[in-house]
């Protein structure tokens, strides 16, 4: 017998009681089912999916999506934009379809959350009332964590870790670099958005250099020793970029401890690297509004109850996507999308006075290292104790190599394209 089962059952009972009790104590008459108001802050893969799913589950809900950008620029595949393989337009989506489905889309930044009054303050001074609030704020950079790397430094040493103008800046810097230059990518320790993405980026930049500037190099300065899909990446690097791409891990002194934007210098414990293009990926935290709402803890991230996505710190607030910490779910578009859908089900259940079922999330992550050559990993996750845990036996990673592996890599590159069309279609289209 699964030793976890009795415990999970008790949790269900306790939670069910708590949810039932909560539904009696709300004094607000607007909490009646037909008029319940849900505000979603953040229009990325998590928030947009959640807002849309809420309306589909219960068309009577008043759902408002608060997102300052009128056009969303997706991070997955943005490494191909940096390498000149893809147009930024292919990454961009509007909220028109979501609005057409009855979600009120407000193009304002959320600047304040009052969990007692249950209101969200907007940049234009107006405010929104909510019965339940979903925070999907994504990430912000920690400009206090890497000496020398402040907001101004991002114009000289782009992070390109939020897609858009930073993506294009890094691409222009690569295009402007003379052949023979060094491109450095500084990678932080975990947790950060999309753990394998720095290595996909290094691969695709190496592809650009190999085809356009063959005397140049890409150097990964890494604050970690082990990386996701390490064997697959290292095998591919040996095949495609043996003299172009070099990675210095933590144990070889690779951790960048400060930067000097004026001279494009990256400083490690054991040496300085003066480079032509510096892509500095700094340590990160949950998007700022999470902290303003009181939902981010001392780590800068948001801890949640994995059964309901409810913040462990603030009532009536649910948190999804990259802002969440606590468990093995990766910070990825795919996981955020799954969390958005699952959270919508939970929120709709709570509003209807039902006990929500524990969600199961599926995550998948493709890495392209050269055109027509990709691999992926996938897993499912469920609530176990206070965390999301990978469901035993659900994990899958591409086979390393062997007979016909080039065809497998080609097929997985095609699947990556299909995955992107599907997830952006489900979220925005």
């Amino acid at each position: 017998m699964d030793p976890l089962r009795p415990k999970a059952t008790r949790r269900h009972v306790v939670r069910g009681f708590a949810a039932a009790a909560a539904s009696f104590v709300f004094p607000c008459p607007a909490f009646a089912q037909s008029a319940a108001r849900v505000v979603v802050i953040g229009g990325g893969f998590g928030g947009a999916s959640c807002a849309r799913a809420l309306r589909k589950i219960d068309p009577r809900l008043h759902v408002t999506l608060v997102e300052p950008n009128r056009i969303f620029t997706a991070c997955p595949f943005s490494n191909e934009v940096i390498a000149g393989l893809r147009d930024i337009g292919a990454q961009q989506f509007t909220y028109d379809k979501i609005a057409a489905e009855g979600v009120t889309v407000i193009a304002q930044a959320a600047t304040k959350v009052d969990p007692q009054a249950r209101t969200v303050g907007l940049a234009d001074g107006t405010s929104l009332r909510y019965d339940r609030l979903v925070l999907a704020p994504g990430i912000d950079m920690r400009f206090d964590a890497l000496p020398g790397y402040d907001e101004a430094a991002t114009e000289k040493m782009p992070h390109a870790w939020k897609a858009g103008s930073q993506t294009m800046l890094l691409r222009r810097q690569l295009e402007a670099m003379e052949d023979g230059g060094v491109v450095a990518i500084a990678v932080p320790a975990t947790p950060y958005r999309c753990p394998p993405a720095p290595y996909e980026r290094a691969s695709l930049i190496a592809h650009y250099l190999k085809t356009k500037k063959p005397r140049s190099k890409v150097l990964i300065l890494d604050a970690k020793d082990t990386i996701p899909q390490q064997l697959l990446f290292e095998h591919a690097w040996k095949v495609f970029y043996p003299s172009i791409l070099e990675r210095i891990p933590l144990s070889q002194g690779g951790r960048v401890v400060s930067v000097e934007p004026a001279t494009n210098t990256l400083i490690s414990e054991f040496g300085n690297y003066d480079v032509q293009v510096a892509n500095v990926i700094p340590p990160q935290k949950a998007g700022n509004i999470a902290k303003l709402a009181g939902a981010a803890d001392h780590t800068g991230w948001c801890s949640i109850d994995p059964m309901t996505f409810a913040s462990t710190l603030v009532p009536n607030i649910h948190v999804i996507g990259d802002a969440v910490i606590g468990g093995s779910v990766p910070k990825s578009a795919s996981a955020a999308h799954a969390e958005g859908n699952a959270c919508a089900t939970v929120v709709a259940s709570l509003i209807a006075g039902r006990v929500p079922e524990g969600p199961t999330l599926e995550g998948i992550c493709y890495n392209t290292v050269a055109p027509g050559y990709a691999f992926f990993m996938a897993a499912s996750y469920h609530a176990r104790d206070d965390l999301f845990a990978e469901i035993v036996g659900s994990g899958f990673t591409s086979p390393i190599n062997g007979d016909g592996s080039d065809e497998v890599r080609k097929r997985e590159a095609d699947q990556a394209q299909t995955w992107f069309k599907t997830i952006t279609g489900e979220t925005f289209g």
Partner: protein
Amino acid sequence: MTAALINVPKKARNGDIIEIKTLTSHVMETGYRHTPRGEVIPRDIITSFTCRFEGDEIFHADFFPATAANPFLSFFTTATKSGKFDFEWIGDNGFSQTASASITVE
């Protein structure tokens, strides 16, 4: 295995407090772990580190199984004269590694 990494300032003024940093690649296997078949994985750690300046010991550290892999050390000393620092790591299974670096004191 790659040689140890050391970072000693190339130059300093007399009386300056300088930071010295070292990093050695080593698995630091505790001796407390078992294989899936229940066999003990034998201990394999660095047991001591010594830094000498012009032959005189100025810093020493003993390591134990709780020390993480790839030990990183940072320590301080006062620069008094130009000379050579010698670094030595000794460990289980005959592990021995040395490195050196010079400083010019003005």
